[in-house]
C-alpha cells in the first residue's frame, strides 16, 4: 500500500515536470516569436529525464550503503563481549530490530538493547528524512538546470533520442555481458578446480570416482573426464541416428510431397514435440520407454537395462526430430524452384530430383542444421539425468547404464553451496568443457548456415 502511494506520488511529480517542460517550451516560442528546434514533447521528456535520473542514482547509492552504515553505528552500542561474539551479535541485532519496529522482544531486555533500539528508531527517521530531502533537492536541481537551458536553439529531441539510444545500447550489451559472465564465472571456478586436480588427470583420466567431500582425508578421488565424455558421445550418436533420418525424411515429405492441407495439419503436430519440456521426456523415458526396451530385451534373451545409453539416446532422438525437421524444411525450401524445374524438365521423378539435385544443393545448410542438433543433444540434461542410469564407466555397450557430462554437473552441484571442494568445483570444469564443445559446434553451424543462405539470396 505504501509503495503504491510512493509510486503514485512519483508519477504525479514527473508528469507535472513534464507539463512544465512542455509549456515552458511553448511560452518561450511564443514570447520569442520563433519556432523551437523540437516539439514540446521533447522538452517535457528532457525535464523528466533530468529530474528522475540523478535522483534515482542518489537513491540507489543510498540503499546500497545506508544499511551498512546504520548497522555499524548501532554496533557501537553493544558491549564488547556481545559485539565480539558473532552469534550473540546477530541475535542481539535482530532483537534490536524487533524492538525498534515496535514488535517487542521476549525475556529481559538489557539496557544497551533498549538504547540501541531507540537510537535505531531515531537514526532511521533522520536517514529517511534526509534521503527524501536529498532526492527532492537533486530532482529539483536537475529540473531547474534542464529548464534553464530551454531555448529555441536547444536540440531537445536529439538529447532525448540520445538517452533512448543509450538505453537501447545498454540492453544489447546485456546479451554480450551474459556470454562474458558465463565465460568468466565458469572459467574462474574451473581454474580453482584445477588448483586441486591436474588438468591432464581431468581431461585424460579414464576413471570417474570423485568420492564425497565429507570423506575428508582419504584422498581426492578420481576426476577423469573420459567416461563422462564417452557417455555423452554415445548417447548423442544414438540420438542422431534416430533424429536425422526421421527428421530429414519428414522435412522432405513436408516440403516436396505434402499438399497444403496435410502440411497445415501435420507440421504443428510435429512441432508439439519441440514444445514439450525435457523433464517430460525424461519421465517418459524412465517409466515407459525404458521398461519397454528392457522387456523386449528380456524376450530376446538380451540383458537390456531400463535406464541405459540406448533408452536416453532414443528418447533424446525423439526430442530432436522436430528440431531437425524444421531446420531442414527451412533449408530445403531455400533451394530455388528453377533447380527443381530443371530436373523435372529432364524427366526425373520427384525422388530422383530430391536425392540428386535438391539434397546436394542443400547439403551445406543441412550439415549446419545437424551440427546444431548435435550441440543440442550434447547439452541436453534432464533426459539423461532420468534415463541414462548414472553410471560413469567406460563401456561400449549401449544397453548398459552410462553417465554424461551434464548428469555429472547436476550430481556434483545440486544443493551444494560449498564452492571450496573439488567435488563441487568440478562441475564448473565440466561446464567449461561443455560450453567449449557446444560453442565450437554452434559457431561453425551458424557460419555454414549463414553462408548457405547468402548463396541463394
Amino acid at each position, binding site marked *: 500500500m505504501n509503495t503504491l502511494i510512493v509510486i503514485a506520488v512519483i508519477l504525479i511529480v514527473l508528469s507535472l515536470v513534464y507539463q512544465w517542460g512542455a509549456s515552458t517550451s511553448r511560452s518561450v516560442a511564443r514570447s520569442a516569436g520563433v519556432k523551437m528546434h523540437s516539439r514540446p514533447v521533447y522538452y517535457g521528456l528532457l525535464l523528466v529525464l533530468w529530474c528522475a535520473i540523478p535522483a534515482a542514482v542518489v537513491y540507489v547509492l543510498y540503499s546500497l550503503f545506508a544499511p551498512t552504515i546504520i548497522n555499524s553505528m548501532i554496533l557501537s552500542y553493544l558491549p564488547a563481549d556481545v559485539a565480539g561474539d558473532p552469534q550473540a551479535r546477530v541475535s542481539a541485532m535482530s532483537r534490536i530490530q524487533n524492538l525498534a519496529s515496535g514488535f517487542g522482544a521476549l525475556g529481559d531486555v538489557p539496557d544497551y538493547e533498549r538504547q540501541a533500539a531507540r537510537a535505531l528508531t531515531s537514526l532511521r527517521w533522520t536517514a529517511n528524512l534526509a534521503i527524501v530531502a536529498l532526492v527532492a533537492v537533486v530532482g529539483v536541481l536537475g529540473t531547474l538546470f534542464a529548464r534553464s537551458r530551454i531555448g529555441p536553439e536547444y536540440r531537445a529531441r536529439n538529447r532525448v*533520442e540520445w538517452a533512448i539510444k543509450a538505453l537501447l545500447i545498454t540492453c544489447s550489451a546485456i546479451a554480450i555481458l551474459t556470454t562474458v559472465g558465463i565465460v568468466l564465472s565458469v572459467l574462474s571456478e574451473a581454474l580453482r578446480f584445477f588448483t586441486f586436480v591436474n588438468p591432464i588427470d581431468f581431461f585424460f583420466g579414464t576413471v570417474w570416482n570423485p568420492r564425497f567431500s565429507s570423506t575428508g582425508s582419504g584422498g581426492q578421488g578420481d576426476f577423469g573426464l573420459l567416461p563422462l565424455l564417452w557417455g555423452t558421445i554415445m548417447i548423442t550418436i544414438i540420438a542422431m541416428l534416430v533424429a536425422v533420418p526421421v527428421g530429414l525424411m519428414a522435412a522432405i515429405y513436408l516440403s516436396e*510431397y505434402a499438399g497444403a492441407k496435410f502440411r497445415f495439419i501435420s507440421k504443428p503436430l510435429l512441432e508439439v514435440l519441440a514444445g514439450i519440456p525435457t523433464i517430460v521426456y525424461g519421465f517418459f523415458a524412465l517409466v515407459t520407454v525404458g521398461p519397454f526396451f528392457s522387456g523386449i530385451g528380456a524376450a530376446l534373451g538380451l540383458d537390456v537395462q531400463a535406464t541405459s545409453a540406448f533408452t536416453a539416446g532414443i528418447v533424446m532422438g525423439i526430442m530432436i526430430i522436430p528440431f531437425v525437421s524444421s531446420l531442414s524444411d527451412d533449408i530445403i525450401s531455400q533451394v530455388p524452384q528453377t533447380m527443381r524445374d530443371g530436373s523435372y524438365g529432364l524427366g526425373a521423378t520427384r525422388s530422383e530430383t530430391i536425392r540428386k539435385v535438391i539434397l546436394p544443393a542443400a547439403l551445406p545448410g543441412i550439415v549446419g542444421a545437424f551440427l546444431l542438433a548435435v550441440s543440442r543433444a550434447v547439452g541436453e540434461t534432464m533426459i539423461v539425468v532420468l534415463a541414462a542410469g548414472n553410471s560413469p564407466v567406460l563401456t561400449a555397450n549401449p544397453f548398459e547404464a552410462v553417465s554424461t557430462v*551434464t548428469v555429472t554437473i547436476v550430481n556434483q552441484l545440486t544443493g551444494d553451496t560449498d564452492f571450496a571442494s573439488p567435488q563441487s568445483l568440478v562441475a564448473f570444469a565440466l561446464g567449461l568443457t561443455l560450453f567449449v564443445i557446444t560453442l565450437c559446434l554452434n559457431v561453425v553451424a551458424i557460419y555454414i548456415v549463414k553462408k548457405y543462405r547468402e548463396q541463394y539470396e
Partner: protein
Amino acid sequence: MASTAETPALAGAPSPRSNRDVVEQNLARRHRNEAIFRFTGLGAILVGIALVGVLFGSILIKGVPAFTQATMTLEVDFDPEIINIPERPVLQASQSVAEYEQALLSWRRRLAFVNWNKVIQASLAKVLPAAADNARDAAGMIASGERIKLRDMVEADPSIVGTTQAVSLVAAANVDVWLKGNIDRTLPQHMQQLSKLQQEWSDELYQRGVISMAFSTALFTNVDSRSSPATAGLLGAIVGSVMMMLIVLVVAVPIGVMAAIYLEEFAPKNRLTDLIEVNINNLAAVPSIVFGLLGAAVFINFLGLPLSAPIVGGLVLSLMTLPTVIIASRASLRAVPPSIRQAALGVGASPMQAMFHHTLPLAVPGMLTGAIIGVAQALGETAPLLLIGMNAFVASVPSTPMEQSSALPVQIYLWQGNELRNFFEARTSAAIIVLLAVMITLNALAIFLRNRFERRW
C-alpha cells in the same frame, strides 16, 4: 533469316527416338523407387505424429486417474476430552506484540500436540466398529496430513470443539493405490503396503460408499509433503513458477525488445555488431545447464542471493530466454516492409520517431508471440533450476520471490524420484499434465495472436 544455312547433322548423333525403349525399360523400377521414397517420407511424419500420440497417451493414461483420489467422508467428533486446550489467547493492552506471539505460539503448540489420530480413530470407529481396537491400522487409513486439516479447522474456529462435523478426509496413499489396483493384490502379505485388516476395510468402505473417488483438490491447494504423500500438492511449485514467469516477463521481454530495436534499426553495420549477432545466435544454442552454472557462480556465490529463491531462478531463466526474445523481435521488425519506414522518414520524422511511431506498432504482435514462446520455454526448463538449489524440499508457499520455493518442472523431478513409486508415478503424471496444459495454453495463445494479427504486405 528464317532460312538458315542448312548444316548437315553432326556425325554420330544418336537418332531421336532411339532412347525411348531404354527409358521405358527402366520406368517400372524408377516408379517403384519413387513410391518407396515417398512412403518413407510419409512414414517418417507418421512416426513423429505417432510418437506425439504415444507420449501424450502414456502420460494421460497414467496421470488422469491421479486427479481423483480415494476420499472418506466421516462424521468427526471434536471431542473436548481429546482436544483439551485452553482458550485462544488475545492481544492484551499490557502485552508487547512479541509476548502475544509467544502466547499464541504455545497455544498452537498445545493444539498440535492433541492426539488427532485418536479423533480420527473414533470417527472411523463409527463406521467400522473394529477400528476402535486397532489404533495403528485405523491411523494408517487416512493421509497423515489430514490431521493438520482437523487442527486448522479448530484453529480457525475453536468453537467447533464439542460438536460433530462431516469432514471429507483424503485416504492414505496406500489405500488409494490398493483401490485403484496399482498394486498386485495377489502379492504375499509381507510385500503388501496395507495390513490385512486395512485391505478389508478399504474394500468394505469403498463398497459402502464411505470412500469414494473425489476430485483431488489437495493437488492444487496443498504444498509438497514428505510425510503425507496423499495430500502432497503443487501449490508451492505453481506459485514459484508463476513468480519466475513474471520475472522473465518483466526482465527478459523489455530488454530483449529494446536490444532487438537497437540491433535491427540503429546499430551500424560493423565488426562489433557482427560479433553481437553471432553472440546472440550462439547464446540461443548454449545448453541451459550452463546458464545454471552462471546462476550458481554469479547470483548465489558472488552476489549472495538466497538458494532456491524464485528471484534467482527468474533471473537465470531471463538470461536464457533473452536470445529467443531478441531473435523473434528482430524477425518481426524485419518483416515490417521498409516502405513504411521510408514513408515516415520521407515526411521528416527522425529515425527514432519512424521507429517508435510506425515500425514498432506493426511489429508488436510478432514480438508478443516471441515473448510468449520464450516464457513457455522458460516455464518448462528444469536443469538450470537444479543448480541454484531449487530441488530442495520446500513445504511452503513463497510470499516473496526472495523466499525458498519449488517450481513445477522441479516438483515433477522430485516426485518422479519418490520411493513410493506406485503412488507417485500417477501423481507425477498428473503434475506433468498440469505443466503441459499451461504450456499448450501459452503456445495456443501465441499461435492465436500470430494468426489474428498476421498481415500480408
